[in-house]
């Protein structure tokens, strides 16, 4: 009996980690396959580019993780990113505001918008999907009201943020990568080592129970949308660095990528279960698929989509089969 109990105790505790393990292994396998197939694939810079090119997605997905962990969803992130690039470009370029003022302002606007949506969701008990969809419309609409055109940024602070390369031996990363990694670390600590983070999990486990256990449900629920709003704004700032422009059509469909990254990372859309590091893996998976496609380089537009779908399919299938076999 004791071995049984011991074993069941072990699997009980380990169960949560297995999907992450499987995902990481699959990721490595995919990278290895890429390295074998394509010249120049096996290089540190390809890996780092993964981070450079997806820094903003990573930050946005981090925010999304909070929301999804509570069982909610935030469709406004892509539009908030676009709005952030737009406001930045508009203020910096057309009005000559100093970046050091604009960036905090953009972050504040994003956080405020997130909190406002969270407030509506909580107070009026409206489904997050629809509230954040309205938020998405609003943010995109505001972009267009600022300007229909794309606004280029030539401000030296922004250009230097965009063009600085931080050397890592032979290789380099961009400052945005550092910011994104910092965001991941902060979010990880927040989720796993603060009461707010634990309340996020509790809320996702059961909202009713959270209320009855006397947890600050309102604060947590509104808070996660605030976090997501902040992360989208930060993602927007990073995207401004990346693109050096503000544009209403930036980041179209980014919300779907972010949600996909979170869910591929093993977080349940129903809330309460998942890990932030899984989200990081999810972002890497999406990025790696794109890298493979661009290294392949012979795919037509539609084959590109089909292959993305197929790779995703294989990945998900393996992930699913490997984790469920382990569990039974």
């Amino acid at each position, binding site marked *: *009996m004791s071995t*049984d109990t011991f*074993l*069941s*105790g072990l699997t*009980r*505790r380990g169960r*949560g980690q297995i999907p992450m393990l499987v995902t990481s292994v699959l990721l490595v396998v995919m990278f290895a396959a890429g390295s074998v197939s394509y010249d120049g694939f096996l290089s540190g810079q390809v890996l780092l580019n993964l981070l450079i090119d997806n820094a903003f997605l990573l930050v946005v997905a981090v925010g999304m993780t909070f929301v999804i962990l509570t069982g909610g969803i935030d469709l406004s992130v892509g539009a908030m990113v676009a709005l952030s690039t737009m406001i930045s470009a508009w203020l910096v370029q057309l009005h000559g505001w100093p970046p050091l003022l604009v960036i905090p302002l953009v972050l504040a606007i994003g956080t405020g918008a997130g909190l406002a949506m969270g407030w509506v969701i909580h107070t009026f008990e409206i489904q997050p999907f629809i509230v954040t969809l309205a938020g998405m419309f609003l943010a995109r609409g505001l972009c267009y009201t600022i300007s229909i055109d794309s606004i280029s940024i030539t401000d030296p602070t922004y250009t230097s943020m965009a063009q600085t390369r931080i050397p890592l031996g032979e290789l380099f990363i961009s400052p945005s990568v550092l910011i994104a990694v910092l965001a991941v670390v902060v979010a990880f*600590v927040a989720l*796993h*080592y*603060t*009461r707010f983070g*634990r*309340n996020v*999990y*509790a809320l*996702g*486990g*059961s909202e*009713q*129970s*959270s*209320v*009855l*256990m*006397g*947890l*600050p449900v309102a604060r947590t629920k509104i808070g996660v949308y605030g976090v997501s709003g902040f992360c989208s704004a930060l993602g927007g700032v990073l995207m401004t660095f990346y693109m050096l422009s503000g544009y209403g059509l930036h980041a179209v469909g980014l919300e779907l990528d972010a949600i996909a990254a979170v869910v591929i990372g093993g977080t349940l859309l129903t809330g*309460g*279960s998942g890990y932030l590091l899984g989200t990081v893996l999810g972002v890497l998976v999406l990025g790696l698929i794109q890298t493979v496609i661009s290294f392949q380089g012979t795919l037509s537009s539609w084959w590109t989509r089909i292959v993305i779908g197929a790779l995703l399919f294989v990945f998900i299938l393996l992930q699913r089969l490997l984790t469920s076999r382990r569990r039974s």
Partner: protein
Amino acid sequence: MRAQPVLEVRGIRKEFPGVVALDGVDFRLFPGEVHALMGENGAGKSTLIKVLTGVYESNGGEVVLAGQTVRIGGPLEAQEAGISTVYQEVNLCPNLSVAENIFIGREPRRFGMIHWSELRRRAAESVAALDLDIDVTAPLNSYSIAVQQLVAIVRAVDVKAKVLILDEPTSSLDRDEVRQLFTVLRRLRDQGVAILFVSHFLDQIYEICDRLTILRGGRQEGEYLTSELHQGELVARMIGGELTGLAELADAARTEPTGKSFLRAEGLGRRGAVEPYDLAIRPGEVVGLAGLLGSGRTEAARLLFGADQSDQGTVKIDGAVTAMRSPRTAIGHGIAFCSENRKAEGLVGELTVRENIVLALQAARGWTRPLSRAAQDELAIRWIRALDIRPNNPEALIRNLSGGNQQKVLLARWLITDPKLLILDEPTRGIDIGAKTEIQKLVAKLAGDGMSVLFISAELEEVLRLSHRVGVLRDHRLVAELRNDGTLTPERIMSTIASGATS
């Protein structure tokens, strides 16, 4: 009288659309007492508790805490005001670990960060204080409902509040756990904590409570000292009439049916859950399962129903080996299983009472052969009447029913499928004494008509009253099968469990 009450409510009124749940209820709670709140299913006990702790906003009346009229806006405020509560259904987060469930909201911290090792250590201590031996790092939902109930209690007790409210904390617990709990409660009481206790077990009330308040139909019937009100009178005041005896039941159980067994498990087991066991149930026979918390009763039963997959042994139905691949297969063979975890595994909260009642029958018929609306109504009304489900409106949403009444609906769900083998896992959980008697009579009658019943209950007396034979489990192993021949007593079962041997 004594000191002023810590908590007092005056003229509390609570209306739900179409129902007046509380109608001018007065209630006082003194420090250093254990106070029972008594009443039938749907009398308004849980509602009163929810109003007290701010879950519901009342429609009138006032709450006085330590002499001051207060407005409690929610459980969080109640907690801050020193009221700690275990609500009726287990209201914890299934996805979090046991340790976290105990400490969430007040985790020990170091440098502003949650101090995980400290949290685990303290959780393990608190759990051990109730004589529970479980892994506190495992997620809550890997434990049975009884363990979850204990965790909820641990959480509430650990808060060190002035007022401790326990709404049917013992509905799934065995005597041992109840005894442990009572030890803790007495200690707290002696420290001056005021305890509000709800239970449908009269002997528990008499064992631990100093005073009791009776609710009937949402009104306060009266407040009594436990010592001054004897059991019969208490029951009479609760139900507003006399309760007819149970004596004849026990006799009926003696005559053991003979004949070929309907179901026979041979070496049936599942690794990590139940060790291989043999069990046979004849038509018309009631087999009880006894055992301590976590001994594997539920898991043994789930294998018979195909709710979990067995990995050893076989099930024979009417002599033919049958693979129990899923509950559907089992249902197809006339087996029904009423789960102990009504919230997670039973109710479909958004559906009405009628829909919940017909669900199993409809599922068995398949979607192409719908029960006509008239037939559904007829069934629902018949069983609402038979089990005295309140409110007697088949169109009420089941999630709005009181705990006991929900349980009755689930029972009805399986009874209407007219199964050959009915597996009842804690069927009387949270059901008041009046209805419990009715249900026991019903089970006895069904068995008398030839239905096989597997009866699991934490209340040994109940098991003994109904069963022809009792299987005893210990540490996930069926250790004995005892014939209920009149000499079997709860004590003998307990000693069998303790010795772990066939006697």
